[in-house]
């Protein structure tokens, strides 16, 4: 089963700045226009955006931290909190909605005891709602890490969740 990268909340000492340099410099030429894509790369590496990486990024590309924080909080993709081992994306696109996506979401909330954007205490799951993954014909759809589960009924939710450790 696919599993998202696991990380604890790293402190400044634990961030590998050489690796970060590679991302910022080599892949994106320290270009401030590439800010969003740099943040995406950092999130791919850490599974979220640790604060030390953002302050470092600010000095590195000459953009105020406040502005980076603004971008990181404006876009739905970014998380400033550590996320779970498995990211559950529940599609709340219109096609999924009319086919009962909301009921699937309720079922997930009831089963995992977390709300949208939260992570279970054991760090196993993070629940995120997304607006349309573009697999509307399979609605209602949930995506767990990279795996797509389509045409699911709310009584199948637990069985699907159990596949992910």
């Amino acid at each position, binding site marked *: 089963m696919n599993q998202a990268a696991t990380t604890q909340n790293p402190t400044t000492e634990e961030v590998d700045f050489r690796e970060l340099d590679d991302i910022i410099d080599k892949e994106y030429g320290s*270009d*401030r*226009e*590439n*800010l*969003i*894509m740099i*943040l*995406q790369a950092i999130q791919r590496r850490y599974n979220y955006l640790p604060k030390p990486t953002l302050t470092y990024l600010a000095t590195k590309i000459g*953009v105020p931290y406040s*502005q980076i924080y*603004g*971008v990181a909080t*404006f*876009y*739905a*993709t*970014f998380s400033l909190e550590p996320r779970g081992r498995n990211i559950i994306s529940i599609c*709340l*696109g*219109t*096609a999924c*909605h*009319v*086919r*009962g996506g909301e*009921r699937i979401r*309720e*079922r997930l909330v009831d089963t995992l005891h977390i709300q949208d954007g939260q992570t279970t205490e054991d760090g196993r799951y993070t629940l995120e709602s*997304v*607006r*349309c*993954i*573009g*697999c*509307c*014909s*399979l*609605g209602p*759809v949930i995506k767990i890490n990279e795996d*797509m589960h*389509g045409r699911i*009924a*709310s*009584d199948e939710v637990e069985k699907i969740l159990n596949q992910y450790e």
Partner: protein
Amino acid sequence: MKIASVQDLEKIRDKYNPSLYQPKGLKVNVGMASCGIAAGAMDAFEKATEAFKDDPSVTICQTGCIGFCEMEPLVEIMAEGKPRVMYKNITADKILEAIDDYRGGAAKKKWILGQMRDPRSLMDDDLPNPVDKVEHFEGIPFLEDVPFYKGQVKIALRNCGYIDPDAIDAYIARKGYFALVEAIQGRKPKEIIEAVKQSGLRGRGGGGFPAGIKWATCAKHHGDRYIICNADEGDPGAYMDRSILEGDPHSVLEGMLIAAYAIGSSQGYIYVRNEYPLAVKRLITAIKQAEDYGLLGDNIADSDFSFHIKISTGAGAFVCGESTALMASLEGNVGRPRAKYVHTVEKGFRNSPTNLNNVETYANVPAILLKGADWYAGMGTEHSKGTKVFSLVGKVVNTGLVEVPMGISLNDIVFNIGGGVPKKKAFKAVQTGGPSGGCIPERFMKLPVDYQKLAEVGSIMGSGGMIVMDQDTCMVDVARYFLDFLKEESCGQCNPCREGIKQMLDILTDICQGNGKQGDIELLEELGAMVQKFSLCGLGTSAPNPVLTTILYFRDEYEKHIQDKKCPAGVCKALFHYEIDAEACTGCQVCFRKCPQDAVSGEKKKPHTIDQSKCIKCGICYEGCKFDAIKIR
């Protein structure tokens, strides 16, 4: 190898053509767009590849999405001198059997969607039809006659599902890049702009602005001009652009290249949603291949024209589909729109003249140049020319992507192509235009699809999402759903949108929870008019549309929610409950077994009952009952 002339393209075309139309041995095309992969196409592809890895007579090939998503994974099998057969719902456990079946003469009729009468696209019909003389299988319908495909005209989707999106030669074999090279080497930029104007092509992203006029205005302004492709397909329920990028990325690149040549630009950007990783991957491959052939980069096709394309991924903000917000995001900023006193064709990205069109618009351009503006303008209605791709989804039998000529009726799309509503439920409405659009009721189903006509009934063409709703869809809840979406996605910059949407949402939420008051409908109308009038950008000015159209056409549903405290569709939980109809119940115990709350009780073969105090209205029993015995009260 660098391509310097149309002759070079012809050579590649001649060389690749047999593998596309007359393959040696057996060729198996597996539809591998995101939707196909989600349905199991990847596993099927791997299974077949593994099984025939030592057999050079069998080629397993990937293609994009051929549109009929309901039947995915779709697998097409062909061989030289034999018909091309499309098998449906072919998962890994069925693919080898399907290949055997084809070899044995295609006997598994239930597995087969149809055989192709003519696999050529409208662009490459200068060559003879490769299956014209083959002996077709008896008793298998032609794909072109299957209701889902009948009436479709594929221009933007001309190659989706027919070619390997990762093979530039396949695109060239279907006359790809011919329009570009011919343009660079023999046509003046002005002529091209004129042709696009003549064709009547309008922006397919939703606005519907005439593309030729936009190009001409951009070309008039001086500075470093930019070409941007808006692939930030944010409307929930719409995936036309994803499908084009995943199935035929070169058509978009070629469209952008032609625009760049016509307008005079050397740098382009594709702003694509982060949620579409496969589209990004295929674009990266396509760009690399085009560069290797000298069709992208410096001195394209041995000329003075140079053009580069960079991909930029979005980060999950619906408002970035708005052109000025998109450009702000491309510059690495928060995606907030600005007022368009000065248009982006004059001052856009980096304050320079910028031409922005969406994926489908660009994909149409090569076809217009190849076949001529008059040909394109010959389709459609007075003000809406050509074809439009719709993603037909929701409560409809045949979900999928359909490309139809403008002017076709909604009825034709939903009932003839889409096959109507499943499970014999009653049709209620069709929603077009995403969160900026409206819900169109049954009495307007004869309406021709056209920018003006849809606007006249309060909706918009939008980018092409078409969501079918049935009796189980609550229109008040749909309005609430869209406003909830828009509240999250409003950038928060201007008051009318930020506060107006929130207030409207609060009222709608109250109505859905049974706390609606007399006068709420009128208040919603008043607030809606205010938000429409005073918001800064298109997101705000169109945000009230889903509310206002549902009030206009389904006012009785609002009134039932407010006055009777009832939700007739059985969606708003506070306003209904489930009951078992003792006469219809057979006591099959499906609901009894499925209920997660143990709220259902009753003996076998005797009518069951629901304990209302335990019921959480999850709907599992309602969906599961085969005898229609669970009633919404």
